[in-house]
């Protein structure tokens, strides 16, 4: 339970919407901030678990690496003119993509 999980997925759309909703609830005095904190922590945990166990989708991508940095065990890439190839869908083109990547073998995480 006390295991720490990455919080990066909070930046995803589902995470931001969840946090927005929780914020609404807090500001309207309907839930305690502590509860919201717990919910978000649970969200971190569940998303990590689901990603680990349930998601089988794969994709390859190629592009021009614009910026890279590695700090505190976190890689950040800025890639331009990226081409994503998904499993069985049309490839996706993107002008610019930012990749934020944490270490999958974090010492705190198993």
């Amino acid at each position, binding site marked *: 339970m006390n295991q720490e999980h990455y919080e990066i997925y909070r930046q995803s*759309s589902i995470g931001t919407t969840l946090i927005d909703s929780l*914020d609404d609830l807090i500001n309207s005095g309907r839930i305690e901030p502590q509860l919201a904190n717990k919910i978000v922590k649970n969200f971190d945990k569940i998303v990590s678990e689901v990603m680990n166990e349930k998601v089988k989708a794969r994709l390859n991508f190629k592009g021009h690496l614009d910026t890279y940095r590695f700090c505190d065990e976190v890689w950040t890439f800025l890639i331009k003119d990226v081409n994503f190839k998904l499993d069985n869908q049309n490839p996706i083109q993107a002008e610019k993509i*930012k990749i934020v990547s944490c270490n999958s073998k974090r010492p705190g995480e198993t």
Partner: protein
Amino acid sequence: MVTPAPVPSNVPRPPQVSSSGSPALSSTSNGNSSVQVKEEPSYMSHGLPSGVQPNYSNPVAQQRAAQNLQQKFGQGANPQISQLHAQVAMSHQGRQQLQSTPQNIQLPPQMTEQQRQYMERQMQQARQMQQSQQRPQVPNPPVSSAQTDGTGEWDDLLTQHRAAALNGPNNTRTADLTIRQQLEESSRAMEGGGLMIPLSEQPKRLPARKRKIDAGNVAQFDGPNDSDEDAKGVKREDLGDEDDEDAINSDLDDPEDDVVEEEGDDSNQGQIMLCTYDKVQRVKNKWKCVLKDGILTTGGKE
């Protein structure tokens, strides 16, 4: 009103109903229950004119319903059962009294012991009916009177419930009012408060919330203190919160002359992939990354 109806509710029904030879037992009981039982022997005896029989399809159905109720709800169903009995009994009293005379005339030699009892009881009932009320001997009015009897009880129940409800809702009313007040206040806070912060500030708001929790403060402080706490939250992240890459990056970006790209990042916030890495290799210009558990957001898709 009709007194015989409610009284037999105390008498346990199903035994009487199930045993066909029981009318002798119930001969001493009051009028209504005897009515209920007496119909069975006559139903069993086929010497009666066929015109009588259709009347008994009803009591059988009623008895079944009563049995069913009893099985399902046990003692709790007694009121309903009694009501059922009362209604059907009433209607049959009316009908049987209409038919009793011709039966008496036509069938004296065939009468068994049971039938004799049955006839006697019918006569008693007829007397009772005449005594209690000058009820017309038409099937419908007795039914309606039985029903009004039931509704009378129901009305009593209703009035009781309403009286209780009048006391209860006072509490819920006040609760509703307070909830409504809270909602109105919250809607005001939504308009004026710091809720409409752009999504890009989300990660910064999280640590702010943490700080609030640490301080044990409540949501009221959310609005006014937001900006200050945001700044503090960022500082915290700078000091070494490993998980919030965004803050760390923004901190590191500035010395690295990536200011322009940083702005670009803010503009296309959606273009981001969140994932974990297994392995990052570089051979000269070629990078090879093995990433896992990623959420890619681009072009409005995810």
